[in-house]
Protein backbone atom coordinates (compact mmCIF):
# COMPACT_ATOMS: atom_id res chain seq x y z
CA UNK A 1 0.00 0.00 0.00
CA UNK A 2 2.87 2.28 0.88
CA UNK A 3 4.45 1.63 -2.52
CA UNK A 4 1.17 2.36 -4.28
CA UNK A 5 0.84 5.55 -2.30
CA UNK A 6 4.34 6.64 -3.29
CA UNK A 7 3.63 5.73 -6.89
CA UNK A 8 0.51 7.84 -6.85
CA UNK A 9 2.31 10.74 -5.19
CA UNK A 10 5.04 10.76 -7.82
CA UNK A 11 2.56 10.41 -10.67
CA UNK A 12 0.43 13.26 -9.35
CA UNK A 13 3.39 15.51 -8.71
CA UNK A 14 4.88 14.83 -12.13
CA UNK A 15 1.56 15.53 -13.84
CA UNK A 16 0.83 18.71 -11.91
CA UNK A 17 4.31 20.13 -12.38
CA UNK A 18 4.30 19.25 -16.09
CA UNK A 19 1.09 21.19 -16.60
CA UNK A 20 2.88 24.39 -15.64
CA UNK A 21 3.33 26.60 -18.68
CA UNK A 22 6.66 27.88 -17.45
CA UNK A 23 8.00 24.39 -17.24
CA UNK A 24 6.46 22.91 -20.38
CA UNK A 25 6.09 25.82 -22.80
CA UNK A 26 8.12 24.02 -25.40
CA UNK A 27 5.87 20.96 -25.60
CA UNK A 28 2.79 23.19 -25.68
CA UNK A 29 4.33 25.07 -28.60
CA UNK A 30 5.13 21.88 -30.51
CA UNK A 31 1.63 20.53 -29.96
CA UNK A 32 -0.06 23.72 -31.12
CA UNK A 33 2.01 24.09 -34.26
CA UNK A 34 0.09 21.66 -36.51
CA UNK A 35 -3.16 23.38 -35.56
CA UNK A 36 -1.70 26.74 -36.54
CA UNK A 37 -0.64 25.32 -39.88
CA UNK A 38 -4.08 23.76 -40.30
CA UNK A 39 -5.64 27.13 -39.62
CA UNK A 40 -3.58 28.75 -42.36
CA UNK A 41 -4.37 26.03 -44.86
CA UNK A 42 -8.03 25.80 -43.93
CA UNK A 43 -8.59 29.50 -44.36
CA UNK A 44 -6.51 30.02 -47.49
CA UNK A 45 -6.59 26.83 -49.48
CA UNK A 46 -9.49 26.12 -51.81
CA UNK A 47 -7.93 22.98 -53.13
CA UNK A 48 -7.96 20.97 -49.90
CA UNK A 49 -10.98 19.84 -47.93
CA UNK A 50 -11.16 19.08 -44.24
CA UNK A 51 -10.22 15.43 -44.60
CA UNK A 52 -7.20 16.18 -46.75
CA UNK A 53 -5.93 18.78 -44.29
CA UNK A 54 -6.61 16.59 -41.28
CA UNK A 55 -5.06 13.45 -42.70
CA UNK A 56 -2.01 15.11 -44.22
CA UNK A 57 -1.14 17.10 -41.13
CA UNK A 58 -1.89 14.22 -38.82
CA UNK A 59 0.15 11.74 -40.81
CA UNK A 60 3.15 13.78 -41.84
CA UNK A 61 3.46 16.22 -39.00
CA UNK A 62 1.55 15.17 -35.91
CA UNK A 63 2.30 11.46 -35.79
CA UNK A 64 5.78 11.53 -37.28
CA UNK A 65 7.23 14.65 -35.68
CA UNK A 66 5.10 16.10 -32.90
CA UNK A 67 4.26 12.89 -31.04
CA UNK A 68 7.88 11.66 -30.91
CA UNK A 69 9.25 15.10 -30.00
CA UNK A 70 6.74 15.82 -27.25
CA UNK A 71 7.07 12.36 -25.74
CA UNK A 72 10.84 12.62 -25.95
CA UNK A 73 10.92 15.94 -24.14
CA UNK A 74 8.64 14.63 -21.40
CA UNK A 75 9.82 11.05 -21.22
CA UNK A 76 13.54 11.63 -21.00
CA UNK A 77 12.96 14.31 -18.37
CA UNK A 78 11.49 11.81 -15.92
CA UNK A 79 14.90 11.04 -14.50
CA UNK A 80 17.46 12.96 -16.52
CA UNK A 81 15.95 16.35 -15.72
CA UNK A 82 16.38 15.64 -12.04
CA UNK A 83 19.98 14.67 -12.68
CA UNK A 84 20.59 17.75 -14.80
CA UNK A 85 19.00 20.00 -12.18
CA UNK A 86 20.95 18.18 -9.48
CA UNK A 87 17.80 17.54 -7.46
CA UNK A 88 18.01 13.76 -7.76
CA UNK A 89 19.91 13.74 -4.48
CA UNK A 90 16.78 14.65 -2.54
CA UNK A 91 14.78 11.82 -4.03
CA UNK A 92 17.48 9.23 -3.59
CA UNK A 93 18.07 10.05 0.05
CA UNK A 94 14.45 9.39 0.98
CA UNK A 95 13.00 6.04 2.04
CA UNK A 96 11.21 5.48 -1.26
CA UNK A 97 11.38 2.54 -3.57
CA UNK A 98 13.36 3.62 -6.59
CA UNK A 99 11.31 1.50 -9.02
CA UNK A 100 8.12 3.01 -7.57
CA UNK A 101 9.57 6.45 -8.08
CA UNK A 102 10.48 5.67 -11.68
CA UNK A 103 7.15 4.05 -12.51
CA UNK A 104 5.17 6.79 -10.76
CA UNK A 105 6.99 9.56 -12.59
CA UNK A 106 6.77 7.74 -15.91
CA UNK A 107 3.02 7.29 -15.49
CA UNK A 108 2.69 10.93 -14.56
CA UNK A 109 4.62 11.93 -17.67
CA UNK A 110 2.48 9.57 -19.72
CA UNK A 111 -0.71 11.07 -18.34
CA UNK A 112 0.52 14.51 -19.34
CA UNK A 113 1.59 13.52 -22.85
CA UNK A 114 -1.70 11.68 -23.43
CA UNK A 115 -3.73 14.67 -22.29
CA UNK A 116 -1.69 17.11 -24.28
CA UNK A 117 -1.39 15.13 -27.48
CA UNK A 118 -5.04 14.07 -27.56
CA UNK A 119 -6.07 17.66 -26.95
CA UNK A 120 -3.66 18.75 -29.67
CA UNK A 121 -5.07 16.19 -32.08
CA UNK A 122 -8.61 17.27 -31.25
CA UNK A 123 -7.70 20.89 -31.84
CA UNK A 124 -6.04 20.00 -35.13
CA UNK A 125 -9.16 18.18 -36.31
CA UNK A 126 -11.40 21.00 -35.16
CA UNK A 127 -9.36 23.58 -37.03
CA UNK A 128 -8.99 21.35 -40.10
CA UNK A 129 -12.74 20.79 -40.18
CA UNK A 130 -13.16 24.39 -41.26
CA UNK A 131 -11.36 23.70 -44.51
CA UNK A 132 -13.96 22.80 -47.04
CA UNK A 133 -12.16 23.30 -50.31
CA UNK A 134 -15.29 25.02 -51.56
CA UNK A 135 -17.44 21.91 -51.02
CA UNK A 136 -20.48 21.38 -48.81
CA UNK A 137 -19.75 19.96 -45.38
CA UNK A 138 -20.53 16.29 -44.86
CA UNK A 139 -23.07 15.13 -42.26
CA UNK A 140 -22.13 15.44 -38.62
CA UNK A 141 -20.22 12.40 -37.33
CA UNK A 142 -18.12 13.60 -34.49
CA UNK A 143 -18.79 16.43 -32.07
CA UNK A 144 -15.49 18.13 -32.44
CA UNK A 145 -15.16 17.80 -36.18
CA UNK A 146 -18.58 17.80 -37.71
CA UNK A 147 -17.43 17.17 -41.23
CA UNK A 148 -14.76 14.63 -40.47
CA UNK A 149 -15.72 10.99 -40.47
CA UNK A 150 -15.09 8.51 -37.67
CA UNK A 151 -12.62 6.90 -40.03
CA UNK A 152 -10.41 9.93 -39.55
CA UNK A 153 -10.99 11.00 -35.99
CA UNK A 154 -10.99 7.79 -34.00
CA UNK A 155 -8.02 6.11 -35.74
CA UNK A 156 -6.01 9.29 -35.21
CA UNK A 157 -6.85 9.45 -31.51
CA UNK A 158 -5.97 5.80 -31.11
CA UNK A 159 -2.70 6.14 -33.01
CA UNK A 160 -1.74 9.20 -30.97
CA UNK A 161 -2.53 7.37 -27.74
CA UNK A 162 -0.53 4.31 -28.78
CA UNK A 163 2.38 6.48 -29.84
CA UNK A 164 2.27 8.43 -26.59
CA UNK A 165 2.34 5.26 -24.52
CA UNK A 166 5.16 3.61 -26.42
CA UNK A 167 7.39 6.61 -26.90
CA UNK A 168 6.98 8.13 -23.44
CA UNK A 169 7.89 4.94 -21.64
CA UNK A 170 10.74 4.07 -24.00
CA UNK A 171 12.28 7.49 -23.54
CA UNK A 172 11.73 7.37 -19.79
CA UNK A 173 13.67 4.11 -19.65
CA UNK A 174 16.33 5.63 -21.89
CA UNK A 175 16.74 8.41 -19.36
CA UNK A 176 17.69 5.85 -16.73
CA UNK A 177 20.14 3.95 -18.87
CA UNK A 178 22.11 6.77 -20.42
CA UNK A 179 23.45 10.20 -19.61
CA UNK A 180 22.34 11.56 -22.98
CA UNK A 181 18.79 10.33 -23.54
CA UNK A 182 17.88 13.36 -25.63
CA UNK A 183 20.57 12.70 -28.21
CA UNK A 184 19.79 9.02 -28.45
CA UNK A 185 16.08 9.76 -28.54
CA UNK A 186 16.52 12.24 -31.36
CA UNK A 187 18.73 9.79 -33.24
CA UNK A 188 16.09 7.08 -32.82
CA UNK A 189 13.25 9.39 -33.82
CA UNK A 190 14.75 11.14 -36.80
CA UNK A 191 17.27 8.68 -38.10
CA UNK A 192 16.56 5.11 -37.05
CA UNK A 193 12.78 5.19 -37.15
CA UNK A 194 12.77 6.71 -40.60
CA UNK A 195 15.31 4.19 -41.74
CA UNK A 196 13.57 1.12 -40.30
CA UNK A 197 10.05 2.19 -41.12
CA UNK A 198 10.90 2.50 -44.78
CA UNK A 199 12.65 -0.84 -45.06
CA UNK A 200 10.63 -3.72 -46.44
CA UNK A 201 10.24 -6.85 -44.38
CA UNK A 202 10.47 -7.49 -40.67
CA UNK A 203 12.92 -4.64 -39.94
CA UNK A 204 9.99 -2.28 -39.95
CA UNK A 205 8.83 -3.82 -36.69
CA UNK A 206 11.71 -2.04 -34.96
CA UNK A 207 10.00 1.30 -35.49
CA UNK A 208 7.06 2.44 -33.39
CA UNK A 209 5.87 4.40 -36.41
CA UNK A 210 5.24 1.12 -38.18
CA UNK A 211 2.64 0.16 -35.59
CA UNK A 212 0.99 3.55 -35.72
CA UNK A 213 0.79 3.29 -39.49
CA UNK A 214 -0.60 -0.21 -39.17
CA UNK A 215 -3.37 1.04 -36.95
CA UNK A 216 -4.24 3.86 -39.32
CA UNK A 217 -4.10 1.55 -42.32
CA UNK A 218 -6.39 -0.97 -40.63
CA UNK A 219 -8.87 1.36 -38.98
CA UNK A 220 -8.71 4.48 -41.10
CA UNK A 221 -11.07 5.42 -43.86
CA UNK A 222 -10.13 5.89 -47.51
CA UNK A 223 -9.17 9.45 -46.72
CA UNK A 224 -5.88 8.09 -45.39
CA UNK A 225 -5.31 5.89 -48.36
CA UNK A 226 -4.23 8.78 -50.56
CA UNK A 227 -1.25 9.53 -48.37
CA UNK A 228 2.18 8.35 -49.31
CA UNK A 229 3.29 5.41 -47.20
CA UNK A 230 -0.17 4.32 -46.00
CA UNK A 231 -0.91 1.75 -48.61
CA UNK A 232 2.01 -0.55 -47.95
CA UNK A 233 1.85 -4.29 -47.64
CA UNK A 234 2.66 -6.28 -44.51
CA UNK A 235 1.08 -4.06 -41.90
CA UNK A 236 0.26 -5.53 -38.51
CA UNK A 237 -3.27 -6.30 -37.50
CA UNK A 238 -4.81 -4.04 -34.85
CA UNK A 239 -4.79 -6.78 -32.27
CA UNK A 240 -1.09 -7.36 -32.72
CA UNK A 241 -0.43 -3.65 -32.64
CA UNK A 242 -2.13 -3.39 -29.26
CA UNK A 243 -0.27 -6.39 -27.99
CA UNK A 244 3.14 -5.23 -29.15
CA UNK A 245 2.74 -1.66 -27.97
CA UNK A 246 1.59 -3.00 -24.61
CA UNK A 247 4.60 -5.27 -24.51
CA UNK A 248 6.95 -2.44 -25.39
CA UNK A 249 5.45 -0.33 -22.61
CA UNK A 250 5.76 -3.07 -20.02
CA UNK A 251 9.30 -3.96 -21.04
CA UNK A 252 10.35 -0.30 -20.92
CA UNK A 253 8.89 0.09 -17.43
CA UNK A 254 10.45 -3.16 -16.27
CA UNK A 255 13.89 -2.35 -17.66
CA UNK A 256 13.83 1.17 -16.27
CA UNK A 257 12.77 -0.11 -12.83
CA UNK A 258 15.45 -2.78 -12.83
CA UNK A 259 18.20 -0.38 -13.82
CA UNK A 260 17.31 2.40 -11.44
CA UNK A 261 17.54 0.13 -8.42
CA UNK A 262 21.30 -0.07 -8.61
CA UNK A 263 22.10 3.03 -10.61
CA UNK A 264 24.46 5.59 -9.16
CA UNK A 265 24.03 9.17 -10.22
CA UNK A 266 27.32 10.84 -9.58
CA UNK A 267 26.82 14.59 -9.58
CA UNK A 268 29.89 16.70 -10.05
CA UNK A 269 30.45 19.50 -7.56
Amino acid at each position, binding site marked *: METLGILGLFARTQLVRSLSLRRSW*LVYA*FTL*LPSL*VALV*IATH*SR*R*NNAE*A*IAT*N*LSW*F*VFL*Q*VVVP*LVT*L*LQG*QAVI*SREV*EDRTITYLFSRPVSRPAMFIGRSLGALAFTLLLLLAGAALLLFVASHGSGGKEPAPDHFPLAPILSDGVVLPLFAAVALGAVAYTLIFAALGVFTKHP*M*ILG*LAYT*FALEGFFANLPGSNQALAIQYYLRSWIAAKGSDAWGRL*EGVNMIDFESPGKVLLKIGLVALVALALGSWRIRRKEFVLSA
Partner: protein
Amino acid sequence: MKASTHTEIYRPFVGELARGGMRWRPLAQSTLRSALRKKLPLLLFAPPAIATVIFSFIVYAKFAVESGSNPMPGAQDAGPSPIGAIGGMAGNLIQVREMIVGFHMAMDFFALLIVAWYGSGLIAEDVRRKAYLLYFARPLTRIDYLLGKWLPLVLLGAGATLLPGVVICTVAAFASPHWSFITEEGDTIWKMLLYSLVSVCVQTSLILAVSSLTKRKTHALAVALGFFALTAGLGAMLAGMNREPGWNMLSVFGCLKRIAAGLFDLKRLGHFRSFEWSLSWTWIVLGAWVVLAWVVLFWRTRRLEVNG
Protein backbone atom coordinates in the same frame (compact mmCIF):
# COMPACT_ATOMS: atom_id res chain seq x y z
CA MET B 1 46.07 47.18 12.62
CA LYS B 2 49.49 48.19 11.35
CA ALA B 3 49.71 49.30 7.70
CA SER B 4 52.20 47.60 5.44
CA THR B 5 53.12 47.46 1.79
CA HIS B 6 54.41 44.57 -0.22
CA THR B 7 56.02 46.19 -3.21
CA GLU B 8 58.73 43.60 -3.18
CA ILE B 9 56.22 40.95 -4.20
CA TYR B 10 54.55 42.59 -7.16
CA ARG B 11 56.31 44.10 -10.10
CA PRO B 12 54.63 47.04 -11.76
CA PHE B 13 53.02 46.48 -15.15
CA VAL B 14 55.13 47.74 -18.00
CA GLY B 15 53.58 48.31 -21.37
CA GLU B 16 50.25 49.33 -22.80
CA LEU B 17 46.89 47.70 -22.42
CA ALA B 18 45.56 46.59 -25.78
CA ARG B 19 42.69 48.71 -27.00
CA GLY B 20 40.01 47.47 -29.34
CA GLY B 21 41.19 44.60 -31.44
CA MET B 22 39.47 41.31 -31.93
CA ARG B 23 38.12 40.69 -28.47
CA TRP B 24 36.05 37.84 -29.79
CA ARG B 25 39.19 35.91 -30.64
CA PRO B 26 40.01 34.52 -27.17
CA LEU B 27 36.36 33.61 -26.69
CA ALA B 28 36.28 31.88 -30.06
CA GLN B 29 39.49 30.02 -29.30
CA SER B 30 38.25 28.82 -25.94
CA THR B 31 34.88 27.84 -27.43
CA LEU B 32 36.65 25.74 -30.02
CA ARG B 33 38.96 24.21 -27.45
CA SER B 34 36.06 23.26 -25.20
CA ALA B 35 34.16 21.82 -28.12
CA LEU B 36 37.03 19.62 -29.22
CA ARG B 37 37.92 18.47 -25.71
CA LYS B 38 35.43 15.61 -25.75
CA LYS B 39 36.56 12.93 -28.13
CA LEU B 40 33.38 10.95 -28.67
CA PRO B 41 31.44 13.65 -30.56
CA LEU B 42 34.33 13.82 -33.03
CA LEU B 43 32.81 10.63 -34.44
CA LEU B 44 30.28 12.89 -36.11
CA PHE B 45 33.08 13.94 -38.44
CA ALA B 46 33.71 10.33 -39.42
CA PRO B 47 31.00 9.97 -42.10
CA PRO B 48 32.06 13.16 -43.93
CA ALA B 49 35.67 12.08 -43.68
CA ILE B 50 34.95 8.61 -45.04
CA ALA B 51 32.75 10.02 -47.79
CA THR B 52 35.50 12.49 -48.72
CA VAL B 53 38.02 9.70 -49.09
CA ILE B 54 35.67 7.62 -51.21
CA PHE B 55 34.63 10.51 -53.43
CA SER B 56 38.22 11.67 -53.84
CA PHE B 57 39.22 8.22 -54.88
CA ILE B 58 36.41 7.93 -57.40
CA VAL B 59 37.27 11.35 -58.84
CA TYR B 60 40.92 10.41 -59.05
CA ALA B 61 40.11 7.10 -60.74
CA LYS B 62 37.83 8.82 -63.25
CA PHE B 63 40.47 11.29 -64.33
CA ALA B 64 43.15 8.64 -64.33
CA VAL B 65 41.20 6.52 -66.79
CA GLU B 66 40.34 9.56 -68.90
CA SER B 67 44.00 10.39 -69.22
CA GLY B 68 44.73 6.84 -70.30
CA SER B 69 47.06 6.10 -67.42
CA ASN B 70 46.73 3.13 -65.14
CA PRO B 71 45.97 4.52 -61.75
CA MET B 72 47.70 1.47 -60.20
CA PRO B 73 51.19 1.26 -61.79
CA GLY B 74 52.89 -2.09 -61.41
CA ALA B 75 49.70 -4.02 -61.87
CA GLN B 76 49.75 -4.05 -65.72
CA ASP B 77 50.01 -7.85 -66.01
CA ALA B 78 47.19 -8.55 -63.69
CA GLY B 79 44.54 -8.07 -66.33
CA PRO B 80 42.01 -5.26 -66.06
CA SER B 81 42.83 -3.44 -62.85
CA PRO B 82 40.09 -3.01 -60.27
CA ILE B 83 40.89 0.66 -60.27
CA GLY B 84 40.54 0.77 -64.02
CA ALA B 85 37.17 -0.90 -63.73
CA ILE B 86 36.04 1.57 -61.11
CA GLY B 87 37.40 4.42 -63.20
CA GLY B 88 35.56 3.11 -66.17
CA MET B 89 32.40 2.97 -64.16
CA ALA B 90 33.06 6.39 -62.80
CA GLY B 91 33.63 7.71 -66.24
CA ASN B 92 30.19 6.56 -67.12
CA LEU B 93 28.70 7.95 -63.99
CA ILE B 94 27.70 11.46 -63.42
CA GLN B 95 30.26 14.17 -64.01
CA VAL B 96 32.58 15.33 -61.26
CA ARG B 97 30.55 18.48 -60.94
CA GLU B 98 27.40 16.51 -60.27
CA MET B 99 29.26 14.36 -57.80
CA ILE B 100 30.39 17.39 -55.86
CA VAL B 101 26.85 18.74 -55.75
CA GLY B 102 25.44 15.41 -54.67
CA PHE B 103 28.18 15.11 -52.09
CA HIS B 104 27.33 18.48 -50.57
CA MET B 105 23.64 17.73 -50.45
CA ALA B 106 24.40 14.57 -48.52
CA MET B 107 26.90 16.32 -46.25
CA ASP B 108 24.38 19.00 -45.35
CA PHE B 109 22.71 16.48 -43.06
CA PHE B 110 25.96 15.67 -41.27
CA ALA B 111 26.83 19.32 -41.05
CA LEU B 112 23.47 19.87 -39.36
CA LEU B 113 24.21 17.11 -36.86
CA ILE B 114 27.63 18.56 -36.09
CA VAL B 115 26.40 22.13 -35.83
CA ALA B 116 23.39 21.07 -33.75
CA TRP B 117 25.52 19.02 -31.37
CA TYR B 118 28.20 21.63 -30.81
CA GLY B 119 26.02 24.68 -31.15
CA SER B 120 22.88 23.90 -29.19
CA GLY B 121 24.56 24.38 -25.84
CA LEU B 122 26.76 27.35 -26.67
CA ILE B 123 24.45 30.04 -25.34
CA ALA B 124 21.96 27.85 -23.47
CA GLU B 125 24.65 26.51 -21.14
CA ASP B 126 26.07 30.01 -20.58
CA VAL B 127 22.65 31.08 -19.38
CA ARG B 128 22.06 27.97 -17.33
CA ARG B 129 25.39 28.14 -15.55
CA LYS B 130 25.26 31.94 -15.37
CA ALA B 131 28.59 32.15 -17.17
CA TYR B 132 27.32 35.18 -19.07
CA LEU B 133 27.83 37.16 -15.85
CA LEU B 134 31.55 36.57 -16.28
CA TYR B 135 31.54 37.48 -19.95
CA PHE B 136 29.58 40.68 -19.63
CA ALA B 137 31.60 41.86 -16.65
CA ARG B 138 34.41 42.23 -19.20
CA PRO B 139 34.58 44.90 -21.92
CA LEU B 140 32.96 42.51 -24.34
CA THR B 141 30.29 43.77 -26.68
CA ARG B 142 27.37 41.73 -27.88
CA ILE B 143 29.00 41.39 -31.26
CA ASP B 144 32.21 40.12 -29.70
CA TYR B 145 30.25 37.58 -27.67
CA LEU B 146 28.19 36.42 -30.64
CA LEU B 147 31.17 36.24 -32.97
CA GLY B 148 33.06 34.31 -30.32
CA LYS B 149 30.27 31.75 -30.30
CA TRP B 150 29.32 31.77 -33.95
CA LEU B 151 32.66 31.63 -35.72
CA PRO B 152 33.89 28.42 -34.06
CA LEU B 153 30.57 26.84 -34.96
CA VAL B 154 31.03 27.91 -38.58
CA LEU B 155 34.48 26.38 -38.50
CA LEU B 156 33.14 23.09 -37.18
CA GLY B 157 30.32 23.02 -39.72
CA ALA B 158 32.77 23.81 -42.49
CA GLY B 159 34.64 20.69 -41.44
CA ALA B 160 31.76 18.65 -42.82
CA THR B 161 31.09 20.56 -46.03
CA LEU B 162 33.63 23.13 -47.10
CA LEU B 163 36.76 21.25 -46.16
CA PRO B 164 35.75 17.98 -47.85
CA GLY B 165 34.70 19.98 -50.90
CA VAL B 166 38.10 21.63 -51.02
CA VAL B 167 39.78 18.25 -50.72
CA ILE B 168 37.74 16.74 -53.52
CA CYS B 169 38.29 19.78 -55.76
CA THR B 170 42.01 19.64 -55.06
CA VAL B 171 42.14 15.98 -55.99
CA ALA B 172 40.13 16.72 -59.11
CA ALA B 173 42.41 19.59 -60.04
CA PHE B 174 45.59 17.57 -59.66
CA ALA B 175 44.19 14.39 -61.20
CA SER B 176 42.56 15.99 -64.22
CA PRO B 177 44.67 15.81 -67.36
CA HIS B 178 46.22 19.20 -68.23
CA TRP B 179 44.39 20.78 -65.31
CA SER B 180 41.13 20.38 -67.24
CA PHE B 181 39.11 20.52 -64.07
CA ILE B 182 40.32 24.04 -63.45
CA THR B 183 40.26 25.24 -67.03
CA GLU B 184 36.89 23.75 -67.97
CA GLU B 185 35.03 23.47 -64.71
CA GLY B 186 36.85 25.99 -62.56
CA ASP B 187 33.65 27.77 -61.64
CA THR B 188 32.65 24.66 -59.73
CA ILE B 189 35.25 25.53 -57.13
CA TRP B 190 33.99 28.97 -56.19
CA LYS B 191 30.37 27.79 -56.46
CA MET B 192 31.14 24.93 -54.12
CA LEU B 193 32.77 27.34 -51.67
CA LEU B 194 29.84 29.72 -51.88
CA TYR B 195 27.26 27.00 -51.40
CA SER B 196 29.13 25.50 -48.44
CA LEU B 197 29.46 28.89 -46.79
CA VAL B 198 25.79 29.69 -47.31
CA SER B 199 24.73 26.31 -46.00
CA VAL B 200 26.94 26.51 -42.93
CA CYS B 201 26.10 30.13 -42.17
CA VAL B 202 22.37 29.49 -42.35
CA GLN B 203 22.49 26.39 -40.20
CA THR B 204 24.80 27.90 -37.60
CA SER B 205 22.75 31.10 -37.33
CA LEU B 206 19.56 29.16 -36.76
CA ILE B 207 21.07 26.73 -34.28
CA LEU B 208 22.68 29.52 -32.29
CA ALA B 209 19.39 31.44 -32.23
CA VAL B 210 17.63 28.37 -30.89
CA SER B 211 20.33 27.96 -28.27
CA SER B 212 19.74 31.50 -27.09
CA LEU B 213 16.05 30.81 -26.54
CA THR B 214 16.40 28.02 -24.01
CA LYS B 215 18.34 27.26 -20.85
CA ARG B 216 19.05 23.67 -21.62
CA LYS B 217 21.21 22.14 -24.28
CA THR B 218 18.84 19.18 -24.58
CA HIS B 219 15.88 21.41 -25.27
CA ALA B 220 17.84 23.44 -27.77
CA LEU B 221 18.87 20.24 -29.55
CA ALA B 222 15.29 19.03 -29.70
CA VAL B 223 13.99 22.37 -30.94
CA ALA B 224 16.76 22.72 -33.51
CA LEU B 225 16.35 19.28 -35.02
CA GLY B 226 12.58 19.50 -34.64
CA PHE B 227 12.61 22.80 -36.51
CA PHE B 228 14.49 21.34 -39.47
CA ALA B 229 12.36 18.19 -39.48
CA LEU B 230 9.09 20.07 -39.13
CA THR B 231 9.82 22.60 -41.82
CA ALA B 232 11.02 19.89 -44.18
CA GLY B 233 7.96 17.77 -43.51
CA LEU B 234 5.57 20.69 -43.72
CA GLY B 235 7.14 21.99 -46.90
CA ALA B 236 6.94 18.65 -48.64
CA MET B 237 3.44 18.02 -47.39
CA LEU B 238 2.10 21.40 -48.44
CA ALA B 239 3.84 21.16 -51.79
CA GLY B 240 2.13 17.82 -52.35
CA MET B 241 -1.26 18.94 -51.04
CA ASN B 242 -1.39 22.15 -53.00
CA ARG B 243 0.62 20.92 -55.95
CA GLU B 244 2.78 23.99 -55.62
CA PRO B 245 6.47 23.15 -55.33
CA GLY B 246 7.12 26.63 -53.97
CA TRP B 247 6.01 25.39 -50.56
CA ASN B 248 9.33 23.65 -50.34
CA MET B 249 10.74 27.07 -49.51
CA LEU B 250 9.42 26.51 -46.00
CA SER B 251 12.20 24.01 -45.51
CA VAL B 252 15.74 25.25 -45.03
CA PHE B 253 17.10 22.20 -46.82
CA GLY B 254 14.58 22.76 -49.60
CA CYS B 255 15.90 26.29 -50.02
CA LEU B 256 19.49 25.08 -50.02
CA LYS B 257 18.71 22.49 -52.67
CA ARG B 258 17.09 25.16 -54.82
CA ILE B 259 20.14 27.37 -54.42
CA ALA B 260 22.40 24.47 -55.34
CA ALA B 261 20.22 23.83 -58.38
CA GLY B 262 20.51 27.46 -59.36
CA LEU B 263 24.24 27.72 -58.75
CA PHE B 264 25.18 24.52 -60.52
CA ASP B 265 22.48 24.74 -63.15
CA LEU B 266 20.93 21.44 -62.18
CA LYS B 267 17.86 21.85 -64.38
CA ARG B 268 19.83 20.69 -67.32
CA LEU B 269 21.05 17.56 -65.53
CA GLY B 270 18.75 14.63 -65.99
CA HIS B 271 19.38 12.93 -62.66
CA PHE B 272 17.86 15.68 -60.54
CA ARG B 273 14.25 16.71 -60.24
CA SER B 274 13.54 20.05 -61.74
CA PHE B 275 13.03 22.88 -59.30
CA GLU B 276 10.15 24.99 -60.44
CA TRP B 277 10.06 27.72 -57.90
CA SER B 278 11.76 31.09 -57.96
CA LEU B 279 15.43 31.25 -57.04
CA SER B 280 15.14 34.89 -56.01
CA TRP B 281 12.36 34.13 -53.59
CA THR B 282 14.42 31.27 -52.23
CA TRP B 283 17.30 33.64 -51.45
CA ILE B 284 14.83 36.04 -49.85
CA VAL B 285 13.28 33.36 -47.67
CA LEU B 286 16.67 32.02 -46.61
CA GLY B 287 17.88 35.52 -45.95
CA ALA B 288 14.78 36.15 -43.86
CA TRP B 289 15.52 33.11 -41.71
CA VAL B 290 19.08 34.32 -41.15
CA VAL B 291 17.99 37.85 -40.36
CA LEU B 292 15.36 36.52 -37.95
CA ALA B 293 17.98 34.31 -36.30
CA TRP B 294 20.34 37.24 -35.76
CA VAL B 295 17.56 39.51 -34.51
CA VAL B 296 16.72 36.85 -31.95
CA LEU B 297 20.39 36.52 -31.04
CA PHE B 298 20.84 40.23 -30.51
CA TRP B 299 17.62 40.47 -28.54
CA ARG B 300 18.50 37.56 -26.25
CA THR B 301 22.06 38.72 -25.74
CA ARG B 302 20.83 42.18 -24.87
CA ARG B 303 18.73 40.65 -22.13
CA LEU B 304 21.80 38.90 -20.79
CA GLU B 305 23.81 42.13 -20.85
CA VAL B 306 21.23 44.16 -19.05
CA ASN B 307 19.18 41.92 -16.84
CA GLY B 308 21.68 39.35 -15.70
